[in-house]
């Protein structure tokens, strides 16, 4: 059983090695594609096992928890692993069209697969220090991807990105050290009991705040988000899509995990802070986007504002809110990655990403326009798309708590999101191209265009699918939220109290 937990991490690693060894020929991209399909199958098997058995845990190297490294998958971890594999496959297909041979020779596919392995590892690990290691794996790989190609703008973005992320990791690592000093364990399930037993709960709250800052930088919440819009618009589009879809969500996931499993001793203090951080994140993100005129910068600021909704789901800390948070997480990864992929096609067609210098897409490429509408309006929360249900759950949760201010801001930010999306629509799609270029699809050679369009169509179909048939997804999120709020199964499975099928 524990092998199911290993394959989603091991396959991308093995793929990375093979893709690197064959980086000079055309084999690299096919190896990457095959590896991504393999990861998707492995994560699908993991998901089906989790649906069947509940929480699954595996003790690596056969050292029992809390001493060894535990991999553990509950509903939340499993769905994150599946969605990572889906995003990975989508961007791997997209990269077959977009990424030039020059970047492939520098090891693009290897770095990409290592990034996927790092993200998957972070979702599956049940050990805090191991989580730190996965963060480092992600950081190294993402830094490599960010500066690959070595243009001036990329290096500038890379320095900001890596400096701020290193600070976050440092705070996180100090928090781990203090927590270990206080409790003598780093296994997350074991920590739940150990932290509750600490006499001086004030110290625990201090450490909790360190974790909030560390993960907050990763998740790009207010006021720690400034590295994100400074860097996400520089790398190739496949890279920024996978960054936008997955990287910040690892921070959100880590927050969700730690602040439901371990740091629940002083919810009135920690989660209250998180509520206002979330609201400010939502508002500043969406206002920042309103001031931008670059396609990818607008989308980058929108990542921040949407992160606010997810952390709000955690901060409100009711079953309905957490359910909304989980649903939001999944919906947003699909939608956001797709929007960046569309931006890539738009850039190839019109020659730029600055909205003032492009246009005419609706007239010349109506299909692309239709495919943009789906994720864009899903992001803004239009029914019947997936974003509607995500926002609906969060808003319902805040109404249920009679937190009217939060409800007001959640709705207002949705409205302002529509403003930004219609701005992109009006400037990139509706108005004629300022240079009189007609961005017809044939401007991109078919060998590049087809792999770039497949993932866009696929992800848009998923957005519509979740929107039209939300029932199973909502139910899934409900069970997931219940598991997060009362993690007895999680703790018992990891510590070996609850027996598992061999």
């Amino acid at each position: 059983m524990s092998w199911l937990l290993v394959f989603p991490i091991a396959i991308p690693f093995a793929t990375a090695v093979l893709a690197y060894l064959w980086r000079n020929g055309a084999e690299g991209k096919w190896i990457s594609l095959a590896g991504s399909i393999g990861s998707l199958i492995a994560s699908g098997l993991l998901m089906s096992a989790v649906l069947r058995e509940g929480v699954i845990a595996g003790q690596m190297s056969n050292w029992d928890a809390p001493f060894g490294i535990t991999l553990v998958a509950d509903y939340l971890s499993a769905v994150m692993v599946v969605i990572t594999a889906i995003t990975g496959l989508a961007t791997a297909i997209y990269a077959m069209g977009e990424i030039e041979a020059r970047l492939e020779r520098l090891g693009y596919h290897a770095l990409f697969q290592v990034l996927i392995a790092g993200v998957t590892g972070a979702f599956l690990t049940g050990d805090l220090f191991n989580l730190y290691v996965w963060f480092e794996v992600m950081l190294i790989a993402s830094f490599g991807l960010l500066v690959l190609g070595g243009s001036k703008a990329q290096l500038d973005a890379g320095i900001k990105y890596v400096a701020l992320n290193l600070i976050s990791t440092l705070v996180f690592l100090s928090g781990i050290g203090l927590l270990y000093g206080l409790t003598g364990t780093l296994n997350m399930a074991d920590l739940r009991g150990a932290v509750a037993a600490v006499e001086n709960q004030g110290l625990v709250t201090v450490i909790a705040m360190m974790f909030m800052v560390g993960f907050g930088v990763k998740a790009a919440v207010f006021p720690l988000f400034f590295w994100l819009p400074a860097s996400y618009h520089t790398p190739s589009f496949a890279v920024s899509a996978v960054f936008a879809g997955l990287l910040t969500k690892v921070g959100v996931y880590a927050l969700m995990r730690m602040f439901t499993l371990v740091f629940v001793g002083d919810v009135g203090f920690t989660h209250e802070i998180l509520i206002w951080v979330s609201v400010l994140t939502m508002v500043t993100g969406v206002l920042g986007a309103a001031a931008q005129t670059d396609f990818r910068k607008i989308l980058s600021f929108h990542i921040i504002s949407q992160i606010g909704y997810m952390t709000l789901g955690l901060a409100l800390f009711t079953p309905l809110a957490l359910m909304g948070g989980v649903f939001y997480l999944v919906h947003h990864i699909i939608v956001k990655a797709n929007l960046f992929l569309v931006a890539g096609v738009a850039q190839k067609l019109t020659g730029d990403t600055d909205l003032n210098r492009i246009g005419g897409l609706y007239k010349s490429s109506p299909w692309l326009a239709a495919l943009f509408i789906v994720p864009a309006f899903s992001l803004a929360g239009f029914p019947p798309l997936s974003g509607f249900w995500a926002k609906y759950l969060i808003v319902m949760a805040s109404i249920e708590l009679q937190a009217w201010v939060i409800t007001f801001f959640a709705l207002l930010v949705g409205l302002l999101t529509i403003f930004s999306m219609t701005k992109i629509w009006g400037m990139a799609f509706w108005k004629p191209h300022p240079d009189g270029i007609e961005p017809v699809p044939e401007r991109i050679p078919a060998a590049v265009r087809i792999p770039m369009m497949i993932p866009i169509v696929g992800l848009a179909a998923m957005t519509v699918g979740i929107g039209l048939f939300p029932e199973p997804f909502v139910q899934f999120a409900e069970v997931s939220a219940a598991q997060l709020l009362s993690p007895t199964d999680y703790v018992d499975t990891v510590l070996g109290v609850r027996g598992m099928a061999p």
Partner: protein
Amino acid sequence: MNSIIFSAGARILVALLLVFSVFMLLRGHNLPGGGFIGGLIAAVGFIVYMLACGTTQAKAALRVSPEALAMVGLLIALASGFVSILFGDPFFTGQWWWVGGDSYATAVVRPNTVLVFDVGVYLVVLGSIVSLACAFEEEV
């Protein structure tokens, strides 16, 4: 660096460092040492050689590209983790065998997957540190 003393001394030093790195790798299971520190010492050996004779010669002495070495190392380390699937143990569980002698304690050789993993780590560290050093050396 053009000092004759340094380049003559470097040859002996490199040989010593490489032998020492293997020694560290092998004693690593129960005593201080192991793949990581062994790989670092071997990398130091190649860096000394690089400083004395230049990157081209050092790369020729390594015979394969350091990046490929690191990648193969990663593959070896990963593969050693998968051996335990054959014996029904979780990922990365160490598998031990013994050859010669009557029992494990008196065996002549004790092949095991833990050492294979350490060799993988050794290659990863050696490859990545040497490729980093090459990149710095070549740019200056």
